[in-house]
């Protein structure tokens, strides 16, 4: 079995979470991982 394709997102405020959600919906087989330097995610929108 081939390894899952991995999408990495740097930043978890507004653009990052929107990108993560859309990517996962478009291709549910994608492995999605998002890195955020602060304590909170999805705070800037």
């Amino acid at each position, binding site marked *: 079995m081939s390894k899952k*394709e*991995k*999408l*990495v*997102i*740097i*930043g*978890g*405020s*507004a*653009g*990052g*979470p*929107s*990108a*993560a*959600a*859309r*990517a*996962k919906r*478009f*291709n*549910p087989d*994608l*492995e*999605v*991982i*998002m*890195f*955020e*330097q*602060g*304590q*909170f*995610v*999805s*705070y*800037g*929108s």
Partner: protein
Amino acid sequence: MVRTPQQFKEMQDIEVKTEHQVTKIDPKEKKFEVVNLSKSETQGFSYDQLIIATGARSRRLNIPGNDSKNIFTLKDLQDSIHIKNYIDEKRPKRVAVLGGGFIGLEMCEAFRLRNMETYLFCRRDLPAGNLEKEISEKILKELEENDVHFLAYHEPVAFKLNSNGEVTSIETNKAHFPTDMVLMAVGVIPNVEIAREAGVELGQTGAIRTDTAQKTNLADIHVAGDCCEVFNLVSQDWVHTPLGDIANKQGRVAGENAAGGRATFLGIVGSAAFKVFELEVAFTGLGTQAAQRYGFNVGSQVIEAESKVGYMPGAKRIVVKLIFDRKNGRLLGAQMAGKEGVARRINSLAVALHQKMTINEIARLDFAYAPPFSAPLDPILIAAEQAAKKIIK
């Protein structure tokens, strides 16, 4: 608004690592380095597709004492928690707000709600200096009615500190003002450093260059949000407009394309709204000066009209300014201010800008009318009717 990493995992199967800072990207090997900030550990990972959504950070004035602990900036939730905690603990009586943009203006309202003496320092003659004079004058009046002290043409040059390292006064090019805390609201800088070091190209504005597919110049790296540029459909220029609604749209496109799709985000017209005390302010498109800079033959029209039929409760006077090309009548921008019916009203003109409509077309638009909502001739239609007279025949 705020969601937890657990919610992302459970609802969408997205893994989220907070307090993890990506410090280095190697696009050749498709690898990157992450520092776990809580443990100060560095780890290496690989990617197949990468999306850079590093956002922007608050700009700080480069003057002596600018990193004192009672100087605050406001960009994210953490910043607002710091500000609130400081006020709760120290009960500052007086605050100096530096910068008359919408963060500074919104915070003037917040500080007055806490009954603090609020001083707003501005480089220019009026608050929201990027907007048209007629709009900025309404904002100034609203500030004054709510006891905000507005100080025009003040350029901060230094902060005076006490032995605890706290600001006790602020020195400007004109005078000295004692203060208990400072909010610095002088704009943002895109976070482009790790991208630039990896070879990602920046645009003229200093933000990351992109296209309508949210690609960068490097393969398998997309970009979204405040760290990148966006295309302005009115000026036909790539600009840096760091706003959350744009970031969300760019994010969707970057996400879809990173997952193998072919989505596009064609651009913005430049719409935004904010509230200062009771006053709603909204704008879309270009202002007079920007439109002139882009070489348009600029005309403008200002009117004041009732937000709904005058005898209805809650009717308020609103000011509407239209900016247009006198040569062909095309709308270039619109700005409004008033205590009711402003923020939503601007959206119809945002649509007009997307559709490159002319003043004459706008004057005949079929807007919904009933006394509780509008007037038989909506303020936009009145303004367009007046503006039409200025188009070169």
